[in-house]
């Protein structure tokens, strides 16, 4: 039996090592290795998907001793919450490599870094050991720093440093929480399965651990008011950096919120659930209003991420507060599905904004107009992604948001006020579409080329899945639901 999870996890790393080991490879070779490795990784992720998950607990677990004296080991595996995210990562990274294959500025270092980032991303979702999780969580940070600092836009150094220090400061409380969980467990071990099956902390200690975890994940998600690094990092990051940052790395926060906060300190989370819920509502509304105020397309999409992540926080908080298991499963289903679809939709949106910027060297909506006539393919793709992002039924975000609101109505009806965010986001995107794509085409953009084959290849899978998830969400939802319905908190 092949260790599929480990193979999928370390394939990108092996690809990065291969690229660094080759003496003076051409840009073409480097990009082919990148795309080839990412394709193989996607094959691995699909194999994991076909293998599927059983009901309760984790499936496809692989273990290797590391420090038995303290109960630390290499442990990986997936359940219905992490498996969709692994699949999402593999797909999004493949798109990223295809999109970036035109890059000629130090391609070797670039592709190697993105491959390292892919291992870190899949590792974060698949890790079942506290230390291992933290290792991947932090490695992603370092590679993202070098991506922004090395290939970002004009003010990249400052933005990269801010991102690095902000998120490192943010992730250190998690280290404390992990140590607390470890020292609190009766049979000292870093096995996350044991922590979930038998939450080691209680009372004040659990509350402190929860607070530490919430700080870490709030920075990562990012939840208002710890979100200030996000617009800065997005604006300066290269397109692929933004896609990965928004599409995958934000999910580290929400995934951690479920995996650590909800599953390892359930009682404390139940007590503090209302506070988390309030932060979720504020994030959803604030993100929506802030997005409405933007004129820069990339910042606009960045702020809509804060809004969408706000709904995920609401979903998780409702799951913690709900006493009825079916309501809890509904809310959690919605939250996980929302993570998945946000990756698809926002990934596509950042690709599209990057494509516009590459052609026009500006992202100011006011400078465009009538682009739909000049670049119809790009324009319609943007419309599709934008409509998905504003939650149109039949597209990816709708089923997730619907379930989150359903769960909210079933337990804390007051929080449904956050549904206002949907209307504002709709207004935001309609405004963006009107200013950028509708109206009379401006003469200065007449020569703008439409999507190339490379760009279509990077985008098309995301858009197809956006529709597929919207029309028939059950292909993802079944996997998610198998775990959430068996969850014991």
């Amino acid at each position, binding site marked *: 039996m092949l260790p599929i999870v480990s193979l999928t996890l370390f394939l990108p790393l092996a690809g990065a090592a291969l690229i660094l080991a080759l003496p003076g490879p051409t840009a073409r070779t480097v990009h082919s290795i990148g795309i080839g490795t990412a394709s193989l990784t996607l094959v691995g992720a699909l194999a994991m998907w076909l293998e599927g998950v059983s009901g309760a607990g984790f499936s496809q677990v692989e273990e290797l001793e590391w420090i038995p004296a303290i109960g630390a080991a290499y442990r990986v595996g997936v359940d219905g919450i992490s498996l969709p995210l692994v699949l999402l990562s593999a797909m999004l990274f493949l798109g990223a490599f295809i999109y970036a294959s035109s890059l000629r500025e130090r391609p070797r270092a670039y592709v190697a870094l993105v491959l390292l980032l892919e291992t870190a991303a899949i590792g974060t979702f698949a890790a079942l050991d506290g230390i291992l999780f933290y*290792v991947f969580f*932090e490695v992603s940070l370092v590679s993202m720093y070098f991506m922004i*600092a090395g290939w970002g836009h004009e003010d990249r*150094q400052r933005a990269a440093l801010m991102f690095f220090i902000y998120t490192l400061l943010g992730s*250190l409380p998690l280290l404390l929480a992990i*140590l*607390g969980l470890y*020292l609190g467990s009766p049979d000292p071990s870093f096995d996350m399965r044991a922590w979930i099956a038998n939450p080691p902390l209680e009372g004040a200690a659990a509350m402190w651990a929860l607070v530490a975890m919430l700080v870490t994940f709030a920075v990562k998600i990012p939840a208002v008011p710890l979100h200030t690094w996000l617009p800065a990092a997005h604006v300066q990051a290269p397109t692929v950096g933004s896609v990965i940052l928004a599409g995958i790395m934000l999910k580290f926060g929400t995934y951690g919120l479920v995996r650590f906060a909800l599953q390892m300190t359930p009682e404390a989370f139940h007590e503090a659930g209302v506070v988390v819920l309030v932060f979720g509502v504020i994030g959803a509304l604030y993100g929506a209003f802030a997005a409405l105020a933007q004129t820069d397309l990339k910042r606009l999409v960045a702020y809509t991420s804060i809004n969408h992540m706000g709904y995920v926080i609401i979903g998780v908080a409702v799951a913690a507060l709900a006493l009825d298991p079916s309501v809890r499963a509904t809310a959690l289903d919605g939250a996980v599905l929302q993570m998945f679809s946000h990756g698809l939709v926002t990934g596509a949106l950042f690709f599209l904004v990057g494509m516009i910027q590459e052609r026009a060297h500006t992202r100011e909506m006011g400078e465009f107009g009538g682009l739909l006539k000049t670049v119809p393919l790009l324009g319609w793709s943007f419309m599709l992604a934008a409509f998905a992002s504003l939650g149109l039924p039949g597209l990816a975000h709708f089923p997730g948001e619907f379930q989150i609101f359903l769960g909210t109505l079933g337990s804390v009806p007051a929080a449904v006020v956050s549904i206002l965010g949907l209307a504002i986001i709709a207004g935001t995107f309609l405004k963006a579409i009107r200013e950028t794509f509708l109206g009379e085409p401006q003469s200065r953009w007449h020569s703008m080329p439409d999507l190339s084959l490379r760009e279509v290849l990077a985008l098309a899978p995301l858009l197809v899945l956006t529709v597929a998830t919207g029309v028939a969400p059950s292909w993802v939802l079944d996997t998610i639901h198998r775990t959430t319905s068996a969850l014991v908190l």
Partner: protein
Amino acid sequence: MGRDLALLIPEIAVLLAAVSALIAEILRRPRASLALAMLGLFVATGLTIRLVGTDTTVFGGSFRIDALSIWAKLILLPATMLSLLLASAEVRGTVREGTVYSLLCLATVGALILAGAGDMMFLVLGLLLTSLATFALVAYPDDDPATEAAMKYFVFGSVAGAVMIFGLTYWFGAAGSTMIADLEGTEAIPLAVIFGLVAVIVGLGYKASLVPFHFWVPDAYEGGPLSVAAFLSVVPKVGALFALTQVFRDLPSESGGPAVIAGLAVLSMTYGYLAALVQDNVVRLLAYSSIAQSGYFLLGIVALGESSFALPSIIFFAAAYAAMNLGAFAVIAAVGRTLNDFNGLGRAQPLVGVAMVLFLLSLVGIPPLAGFVGKFLLFAAAIHAQFTWLAVVAILNSVLALAVYMRIIVPMYRQEEVPHDAASIWIDIVTLTALLATVTIGLAAQFFFVKSMA
């Protein structure tokens, strides 16, 4: 007696290496001097391996052959070998170059004696041996900055050493024994012994460069040869910290000692990084960073006796620290001493650039590098011993550390490159060895546990 000497063979081998290196120098054979020193250290390392797992004492309990002293040899002897290679690239062709190799070996003997001290007289002996040898090493270039640095170091070292000896007389007078282990049985510690302990903290704190006994460090590192700075930042420091561990593991826990150590840890970490933040000279920056790193060791020392992590975490962090710090110094030896020298390094020499980034990130404590595993264990030890607040302070300092080391990393990938001469092959070998250790040592963490707990 025969058994005692058999257990001390590694130390004796290093001593012989020092003497034979000196003899070769007298015969004006500097290359032979280097070769003999390397050979002696190599043999001593090999002879130590068979001792792993022993836990005994020699000379009536006054010198300990335990996990600490054995690991001190396994860590410090290779570290000295790397320092010798750095030194050979730096002092090659100067007059009396062989004395450098001999003195490095002698200082290492002193550090090993410190690490195994079971008796206060060994503390004194080890401290004096390392101090005297390194005073001369700092002064070796024989120019104004080196002489000034050596003078400051000498005055500071002599005073600290004298304070320690003075305090130890009180301890001896009150306790009636020079054995550290005799502390364990005492119910209430007499005031005079406490005075002696404070003096020990002063003496060892000076050698381990803890705040507030650190004033000599930046000057000595900057004034002396770079290879000596690299050596000083690792070998005598780890020896002194292990000696402090030897003293504190026998201290009754209600003595209040851990609280004092915790205070020193906070001062060292915070002051070290804050001062490093404003340096433009990379050697001074690393000098202050090494002060801060000493503070991290103390997290393990406060947890002695309370947590089973304490000893393994100190030992592991020592190994990680030796690898990453020597590596960083080796890169400085190849590149240059000011921040400007690092401009564009990442583009001009990508591999050296990556190595430096990994050393510095390891010093911050970013996983999965060696420094992370070490700090993680130290934090676990401190929290286990109910010093959670100390672990929080240490974690906050890690953010400060990132800001410090990013000051080197950022210009490496931003500025236009500065032309560099090709570095000596030996420096590259040191960099590569240290890099391998920094990247892989974390995977072998289990090894440190099994052997040290036996």
